[in-house]
């Protein structure tokens, strides 16, 4: 079994995850194969809502989703076709919940997905799907394949068939409050250091504040200047804000790993922190999946509407630009922007970073297929944590590199620390001469003096 002692974190490489395991444990617990299979099917069936059933019934097996998937294009392996990644889920649906389930069961037309099959599908559901949702754009039936993959992961978790690294970091996040060891103690130390080093004020545990700021562990451990940038911008805007040590971690590895209970726990920590300080706005950091997890799923974890706004930091900045509260010094040269899939394509906030870039006055050179159709960096959905996925992920990243190079822009920015981590790792792997920057940090640098 994986655990904190067996799975030390590795901060010496561009990509932060646990150290490459000497022996992989890609299954958890000691359940028999039959029990794993039954547990997966039970979880699959729980997730078969009206929407999931509609999608399961509607696929016409046209294969258009393959061409939209960076992992399929990188491997050319038909098994990486997005809809094929859902085959065990589809089998379970037909057998247990579909309109003709009695026929499928009687004639065994859709056998119960066996543990052997689920093990085979682990690579398809975790290593080669970043849940970027590009396939939905290509699907003539409009099937939300990424959403279904997230649901299928619930079954995989129930079966105890989560990849080693992802289970280890998710379990750590549930236990310690952070997947990368950014515990409340570490956060406090970091804040003290940042305040000293950068002469900024970073309020922690204020009893009341208008805005509750949340962070990504990746920022805390790898890109702490983002925290400084946030503090400078909020001070410039005169906002009353705080971090809270009981709920600061915006990433949600419960979501990635497929454990809905952990996802709820992680969401509730942040929600309760916002409630405790009476925040009217919950500010999410530069993190793509944190946006999906809190902006679109947070209230559902809470079980009722949230009594505060949830904003990605780029939406917050765009709002300030629109309201005339944020004016910036011009940024020289040309820039291109990498859209984090969960914020732009799947989150609906595609225009916000563009409004901020316009306020920066830089020449924006859009990538081919920019914005909603943007190619994923390949690191989302927890893929970047998986050592065994590296080779495939690097090949998928080549698509992204070509997209960036086609712009000829001098600078490259994004608004997701996980994308940034993936770019840094890809840059080091290919010795690529492009360095990705944080849009948030660029804004802080261009604040009027």
């Amino acid at each position, binding site marked *: 079994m994986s655990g904190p002692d067996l799975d030390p974190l590795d901060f010496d490489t561009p990509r932060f995850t646990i150290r490459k395991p000497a022996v992989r444990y890609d299954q958890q617990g000691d359940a028999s194969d039959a029990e794993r299979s039954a547990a997966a099917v039970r979880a699959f069936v729980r997730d078969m809502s009206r929407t999931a059933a509609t999608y399961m*019934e509607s696929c016409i097996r046209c294969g258009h989703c393959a061409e939209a998937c960076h992992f399929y294009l990188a491997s050319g392996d038909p098994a990486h076709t997005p809809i094929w990644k859902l085959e065990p889920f589809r089998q379970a649906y037909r057998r247990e919940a579909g309109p003709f389930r009695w026929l499928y069961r009687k004639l065994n037309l859709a056998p119960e997905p066996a543990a052997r099959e689920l093990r085979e599908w682990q690579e398809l559901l975790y290593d080669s799907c970043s849940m970027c949702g590009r396939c939905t754009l290509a699907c003539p039936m409009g099937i939300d394949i990424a959403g279904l993959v997230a649901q299928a992961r619930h079954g995989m978790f129930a079966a105890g068939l989560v990849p080693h690294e992802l289970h280890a970091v998710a379990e750590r996040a549930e236990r310690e409050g952070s997947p990368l060891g950014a515990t409340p103690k570490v956060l406090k130390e970091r804040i003290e250091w940042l305040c000293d080093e950068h002469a900024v004020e970073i309020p922690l545990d204020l009893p009341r504040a208008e805005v509750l700021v949340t962070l990504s562990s990746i920022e805390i451990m790898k890109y702490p200047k983002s925290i400084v940038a946030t503090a400078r911008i909020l001070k410039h805007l005169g906002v009353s804000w705080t971090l809270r040590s009981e709920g600061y971690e915006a990433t949600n590895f419960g979501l990635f790993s497929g454990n809905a209970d952990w996802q709820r726990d992680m969401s509730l920590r942040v929600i309760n922190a916002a409630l405790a300080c009476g925040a009217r706005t919950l500010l999410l950091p530069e993190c793509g999946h944190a946006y999906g997890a809190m902006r679109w799923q947070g209230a559902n974890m809470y079980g009722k509407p949230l009594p505060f706004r949830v904003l990605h930091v780029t939406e917050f900045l765009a709002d300030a630009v629109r309201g005339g509260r944020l004016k910036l010094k011009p940024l020289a040269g040309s820039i291109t922007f990498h859209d984090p899939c969960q914020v732009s394509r799947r989150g609906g906030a595609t225009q916000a970073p563009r409004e901020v870039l316009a306020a920066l006055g830089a020449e924006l050179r859009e990538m081919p297929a920019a914005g909603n159709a943007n190619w994923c960096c390949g690191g989302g959905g927890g893929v970047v944590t998986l050592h065994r996925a590296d080779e495939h992920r690097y090949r998928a990243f080549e698509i992204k590199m070509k997209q960036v190079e086609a712009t000829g822009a001098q600078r490259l920015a994004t608004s997701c620390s996980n994308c940034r981590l993936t770019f840094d790792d890809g840059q080091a792997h290919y010795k690529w001469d492009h360095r990705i920057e944080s849009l948030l940090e660029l804004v802080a640098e261009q604040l009027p003096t």
Partner: protein
Amino acid sequence: MELLEFARGPALAASAAVCVLGLAWRLYVVLGRPARADYSEPRRSDLVAGAMRTIFAKMLPPRGVKVRGVAMANAYLYHAGLALVAFGFAPHIRFIERYTGIGWPALPDPVMYVASGVAIVGLVIALIDRLSDRVLRLLSGFDDYFSWAVVMLPLLTGMALIDRPYQPAPQAATPVSPGLLAIHLLSLELLLVWLPFGKLAHAALVFVSRWRTGADFTRKGAAI
């Protein structure tokens, strides 16, 4: 009972009933699955308009995303060919009118012959594509091939009838070739019987699926 009588009578009634009831059952079970409440604050509230937009937008090639272009163009062609033949050909309109009382002007026969040809060639290309493309071969099962066959059969059996001039029923006491007509009708009835059970049900499900995504994604302002 003559074969034609059987095809026009009990077989037609039974196949139509299976089609309607089967499709209704399929939709009833799908729509009867539990719906999840969404408590997130919507970005947009024009969900019905978004759902309708998606139904129509998804009829066009996607923007910014490369798809299998030739396959998509072929799909447009054979769908158009099938629709024209099914609803534009004089005998088919007369057939529908006989049972429903609803009729409309037919398209000229030469247009129908071209449409049939396009549909048949398009379906053959689609089958070759399905058999030769690695992705499609992996995704395909019995439903894909059988559905192809039950769509192709009425086209082929219909083509066997078109060398005989069509005459409306009052002029022709008995059809020119009752055996061939019966086979044509039976092939249509096979299609009707299969439709609710396989992928051909996408004729109805396409609206449900696109509506669902359209409404959900419009709520978020996400890309469709």
